[in-house]
């Protein structure tokens, strides 16, 4: 296999206008069909191992069941007036030019079948209302194009009716799973989490060894024994963070940042080996049951360890699940300290610590970086943060500005609630979709190039594990080094000075 798969060399290095509507190319992405799951990935999630014989009946019945149970889904299928406001809002359409990646067209893949079986007009005069039969070709098309939606919801902000394509894409994936056609990337990961407590498959022994190794690094760097506690009963705070924070770059640097902040604040905290994952891929596949099971581990860990608070690390969709659904999925959390948000985001904690003057900061330690900030879609459009409206946008920027001297925002229509997806969200962060990921990153990369040109921005920070991995892979295709993407708490870690800290300046001394 080549370093990155086919077509990747075609990605332009200098692009221009982030909103530029591409020339339409029908079927441009029709062959992009992410790997399907094997029975051993599907079955642990409660799905049939492979395509069931009566798939057509099962799929139609499932669609009806979802429309019955989820009123929003039914309203979304019923109300589209084809106004076209969403057509140029999807980064995958802007990057690929395939009209089926226009949100309305993506919705219609499912809507047309729903009409055929669940509306009067579609049952009797399908040709008049664009209704079509469910065939194997349609099922394959669903799989192809509902795995080219990162469920980022940028289009739903533009829709005058608020139709949420993410909700439709989740339902489509749930229907596909119900007939035995799961996606390998998501389902393999959920199955792994059920076995080991995290997406990576990191067992407690390996997690402990990793954390001890990082403690050694922190002590070498600062001269202080900053701890990364694991499974400590009676700690005040349980940190729930994506397992990428134990494995990948620049995620790990963010984890070291949380540890320094907790150390400086003098709080007792712990990571749990049982719930060593913030990510909840149950949401990506639209499976309430799996989402609940993943969330339940957090509740169990909090109870077993007897903590008072739960704090989430930098993970985008985890924060949507945490902020918006955790109480419904795994609550009530009446056993936690009610004086704090349940759960709380690490950004809220750090922001408060800054306000209270607990953190000693030397901003000049980040002077080599000229920063901008990428709003991650699930944080931006699926959650809130802190005590004020818009906190999910303002708190990360506030923290960044508190630890960096050079900060510049990108074009207004590409940030905050209008942010562009990184191109790898919603269960698409898999190598076999690299071509799609590079194309989908184009609007964000273009906006970044603009701010680089205007203000000399060199680096971009984010608070989502998917965004960080995606950018470290695709940025080199757009003229940036792979380490141009940073964790917000990596910059915090650079700037914070702990009491008694002795800097290890001599690089050879290790």
């Amino acid at each position: 296999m080549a370093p990155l798969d086919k077509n990747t060399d075609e990605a332009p290095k200098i692009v221009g206008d982030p909103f530029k509507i591409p020339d339409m190319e029908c079927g441009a992405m029709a062959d992009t069909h992410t790997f399907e799951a094997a029975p051993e990935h599907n079955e642990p999630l409660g799905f049939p191992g492979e395509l069931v014989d009566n798939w057509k009946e099962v799929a139609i019945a499932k669609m009806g069941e979802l429309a019955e149970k989820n009123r929003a889904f039914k309203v979304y299928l019923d109300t589209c007036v084809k106004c076209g406001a969403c057509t140029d809002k999807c980064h995958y359409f802007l990057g690929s030019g395939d009209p089926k990646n226009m949100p309305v067209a993506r919705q219609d893949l499912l809507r047309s079948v729903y009409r055929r079986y669940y509306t009067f007009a579609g049952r009797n005069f399908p040709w008049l209302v664009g209704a079509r039969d469910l065939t194997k070709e349609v099922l394959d098309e669903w799989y192809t194009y509902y795995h080219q939606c990162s469920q980022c919801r940028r289009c739903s902000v533009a829709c005058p009716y608020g139709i949420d394509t993410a909700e439709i894409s989740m339902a489509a994936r749930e229907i596909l799973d119900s007939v035995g056609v799961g996606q390998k990337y998501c389902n393999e990961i959920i199955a792994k989490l059920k076995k080991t407590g995290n997406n990576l498959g990191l067992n407690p022994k390996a997690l402990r060894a990793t954390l001890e190794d990082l403690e050694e690094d922190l002590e070498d760097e600062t001269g202080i024994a900053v701890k990364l506690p694991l499974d400590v009963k009676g700690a005040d705070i349980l940190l729930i963070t994506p397992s990428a924070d134990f494995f990948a770059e620049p995620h790990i640097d963010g984890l070291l940042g949380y540890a320094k902040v907790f150390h400086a604040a003098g709080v007792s905290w712990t990571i749990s080996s049982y719930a060593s994952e913030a990510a909840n891929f149950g949401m990506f596949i639209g499976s309430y049951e799996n989402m609940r099971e993943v969330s339940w581990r957090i509740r169990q860990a909090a109870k077993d360890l007897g903590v008072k608070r739960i704090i989430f690390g930098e993970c985008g969709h985890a924060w949507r699940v945490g902020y918006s659904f955790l109480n419904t999925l795994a609550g009530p959390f009446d056993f936690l300290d009610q004086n704090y948000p349940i759960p709380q985001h690490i950004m809220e904690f750090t922001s408060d610590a800054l306000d209270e003057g607990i953190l000693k900061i030397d901003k000049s330690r980040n002077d080599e970086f000229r920063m901008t900030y990428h709003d991650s879609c699930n944080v931006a459009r699926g959650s809130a943060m802190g005590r004020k409206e818009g906190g999910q946008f303002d708190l990360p920027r506030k923290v960044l500005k508190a630890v960096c001297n050079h900060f510049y925002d990108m074009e207004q229509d590409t940030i905050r609630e209008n942010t562009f997806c990184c191109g790898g969200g919603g269960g698409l962060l898999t190598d076999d979709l690299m071509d799609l990921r590079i194309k989908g990153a184009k609007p964000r990369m273009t906006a970044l190039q603009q701010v680089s040109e205007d203000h000399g921005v060199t680096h971009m920070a984010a608070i989502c594990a998917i965004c960080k991995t995606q950018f470290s892979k695709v940025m080199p295709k757009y003229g940036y080094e792979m380490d141009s993407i940073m964790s917000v708490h990596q910059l915090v870690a650079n700037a914070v000075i702990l009491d008694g800290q002795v800097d290890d300046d001599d690089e050879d001394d290790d």
Partner: protein
Amino acid sequence: MSYDVNGQTVETDEEGYITNLSEWTPDLGAVIAKAEDVDMTDEHWAVVNFLRDYYEEYQIAPAVRVLIKAIKKSLGKEVGNNKYMYELFPYGPAKQACKIAGLPKPTGCV
């Protein structure tokens, strides 16, 4: 997908990771490296061997940072740094080196 090593066929998943980890031999490692367009040097083998030792103890690949620290200790900082790791394994020390070392692919948001 599969690899042919000394007349034997070794099965893999869609992405070229071997499915039966016990089938790995240095000869197979060399065959996978060739398929990946990686020219194996002593430095490549040092990484592969470290990954295999770590896996044997922990049943998972090490964090990139842990790998780099270990290589830095054994081969010096000219080799033990992130940039050089990507020169050795252009698709990344975690995924590509794991594939050559016969370990499972790291999954998740990595």
